[in-house]
């Protein structure tokens, strides 16, 4: 027993030493701050977006939404046990997918527009073919031992999932089997995002860390710390060189991948509610962050200032998303409505 403990202590010491070295290496390249670099950039003043559409149809809390690649269709998931696929322009509901389990927490649209996936407390990621006459279950991906918090398609044949069992997983949809399991987090994985070049992805978890993974190697390449509570939301900056995280500690942070460190924190003493979701406008200049205080606040990503707010929901904003063409932003809430703003 004593020998085991001694070995563990030695390993722990080595680990801590490595972490200290990493911090030192990060400090060594830290020769500038965002405020310095963005000093010459003109401020944006106050941004006011108008409500353009109010999509009514769900009967219970909306937990997740995802835009289709065509920037016009969108899928939303609610704990009334349904996925609804909307034509956001007309406001029509195109398809309703009834779910086996109403406790859904995540939904995703495949880039092809043929498939949608959802999952939640049932620990299963179910993939549906929505182009069939009536929505058909294509696959039930059942291997996680914890709830499904997030899922994203790479293509019609591959999907990534994040789970409360602390792992993320890449699945092969042809066989329905796990291709790669990404283990390194020590807390529930809450959210994931795919890089623009699809070679890597990032995950945020309840251990307050954000991690970058290589899809090919199946390993964690970088770890980012700094948050003091669960990371609920994560997104890539458009050029793929930075990530934005949103956390229960009421702040959002930007981490730069190339210099391997935190760049700026978006927080405000008047904001005392956790962040549930993040999305960026197409230039990356605006960050839309959904909070528990029923609002979606708008941040200037370069100046670090809060420059606007989207108010109108009667309950927590649970999900936000900007379509590929950047025409606006959609917020979904526990008040069962989806709102489109620009």
């Amino acid at each position, binding site marked *: 027993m004593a020998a085991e403990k001694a070995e563990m202590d030695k390993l722990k010491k080595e680990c801590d030493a490595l972490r200290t070295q990493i911090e030192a290496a990060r400090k060594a390249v830290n020769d500038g701050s*965002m405020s310095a670099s963005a000093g010459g950039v003109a401020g944006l003043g106050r941004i006011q977006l108008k409500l353009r559409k109010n999509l009514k149809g769900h009967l219970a809390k909306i937990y997740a939404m995802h835009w289709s690649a065509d920037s016009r269709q969108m899928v939303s998931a609610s704990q009334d046990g349904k996925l609804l696929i909307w034509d*956001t322009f007309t406001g029509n509901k195109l398809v309703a997918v009834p779910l086996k389990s109403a406790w859904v927490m995540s939904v995703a649209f495949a880039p092809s527009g043929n498939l949608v996936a959802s999952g939640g407390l049932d620990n299963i990621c179910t993939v549906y073919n929505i182009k069939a006459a009536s929505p058909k279950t294509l696959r039930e991906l059942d291997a996680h031992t914890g709830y499904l918090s997030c899922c994203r398609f*790479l293509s019609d044949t591959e999907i990534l999932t994040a789970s409360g069992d602390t792992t993320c997983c890449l699945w092969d949809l042809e066989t329905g089997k796990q291709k790669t399991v990404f283990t390194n987090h020590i807390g529930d994985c809450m959210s994931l995002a795919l890089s623009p070049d699809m070679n890597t992805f990032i995950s945020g978890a309840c251990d307050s860390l954000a991690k970058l993974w290589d899809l090919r190697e199946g390993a964690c390449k970088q770890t980012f710390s700094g948050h*003091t509570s669960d990371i609920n939301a994560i997104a890539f900056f458009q050029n793929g060189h930075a990530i934005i995280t949103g956390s229960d500690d009421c702040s959002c942070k930007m981490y730069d991948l190339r210099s391997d460190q935190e760049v700026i924190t978006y927080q405000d003493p008047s904001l005392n509610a956790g962040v549930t979701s993040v999305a960026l406008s197409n230039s990356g200049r605006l960050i839309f962050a959904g909070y528990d205080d029923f609002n979606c606040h708008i941040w200037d990503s*370069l100046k670090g200032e809060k420059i606007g707010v989207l108010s109108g929901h009667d309950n927590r904003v649970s999900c936000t998303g900007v379509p590929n063409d950047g025409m606006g932003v959609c917020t979904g809430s526990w008040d069962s409505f989806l709102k489109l703003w620009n």
Partner: protein
Amino acid sequence: MTISTVGKGDWHREQMACFRKMEKVTVAMQDPDMGMKMRNQRLLITVIPHAMTGRDIIDWLIQKYNICDEEALHLGDMLVRYGYIYPLKEPRCLVLQPDECPYRFQTPYFWTSTRWPASELDYAIYLAKKNIRKQGELMDYEKERYSVLNKRINHTWDFVVMQAREQLRASKQRRKADRIVLECQEQAYWLINRPPPGAHNVLDMGLERPNTFSSRVPLNQNSDYYKKEIETCRRALGRNRVKSSICLEGFVKYSEQYQNHDPIMQGCLPSNPWISDDTAHWTMNAQVVPTPTRLRVERWSFSFMELLSDPMGRQEFMTYLEKEFSAENLCFWQACEDIKHGENSKIGEKVEDVYKTFLAPGAVRWVNIDSKTMDKTLEGIKEPHHFVMDDAQMHIYFLMKKDSYPRYLKSDLYKNMLAKAVVPQETKKSVFPFMRRQRHSSPSPAQAVAVATEDDGRIKQAGQAGTNSVAGSQV
């Protein structure tokens, strides 16, 4: 009064931050000088003091916060739904009616945040009182809950009944008006904290995320975990790090470059479909169009990835490469993408195809890869998998990026495309001629106040136009 939870590291996170704000508003409404004018309401033969109508509430909110009618209605409605104001006429309908319906302020004793969460014991006493007062006054769902509570806290049931009787006795001593008021307040409180089945439960905090972090950590930290951690850390330590200043400049540049291409910031031509209800923009920017828009062609020059990810851009680039007799590079790259993201079952035959077409000696469309990469790839082909072509693909990608791509941007083909690219005409919304700044987001009402002093009439009309357009697009 706030509802807070102690998070990790001992800081307080407000669960329902809005409650503090709502309390501030209701306190301001009751201010003796600047607050609302109270009236007496007649309820049959009893006179209830300190009441106000729904219309009063809305007017006061409009005046105090300088907001429009719709927003005031929404705000007032929230105050009712969260129990800070309750209706006198139809107590079970927790909605703000913008008319002569009477409302009263909830006493701080019964504020949602004061006693949260509502206790089972208190609920039992409340139901007991109702039961004793008028036999059978309990609604069906209340009867059900009453019997459930009876079973669950049976050990304190004597206390419950005794308390109920005591409270009823005390209330009989009060004046009728006070008694009615207290009953209304208590009823309103319980309608929020124990809503009838089917009613929206505004206090629902959702699935409690089990805070397993603290319990999991000790379990995981055995020597295996540390060994893996060390490996991960070593790998992370060895990575190349770029100077912060360079990276940050990159973000600033990107953001500036794409600002014109960001519809939320700069608007979009001919118009944003969500605003104008005109799908022209989507039609003009479809995957394949005879003439692309100027912004789209401009984006091709921002980065090689932009060019390749646009099907039209890729097509144009292919045409250019064909002229230069190097189209096999792009074909090879596309074939590799297909292997990387395509079906597992077809990998074998796809890799075989790619080898025959692009890599074999004397192949029809032979690509120029350095010998080291070629050897590695040929070795990998023996056991094909999704990423077997990665190195070769990367080599060809950089070849195109460094060589062909810059020359393409300087070529006549690209320049002509840019010249004949379409700059759509901005469609004017003909309805309200004074609603300028079509492409941009509307100005903040706070700013409108400053301008109002200059030109009251114009702003009023513009404000109404704004309201109308919002109402018009609601589904």
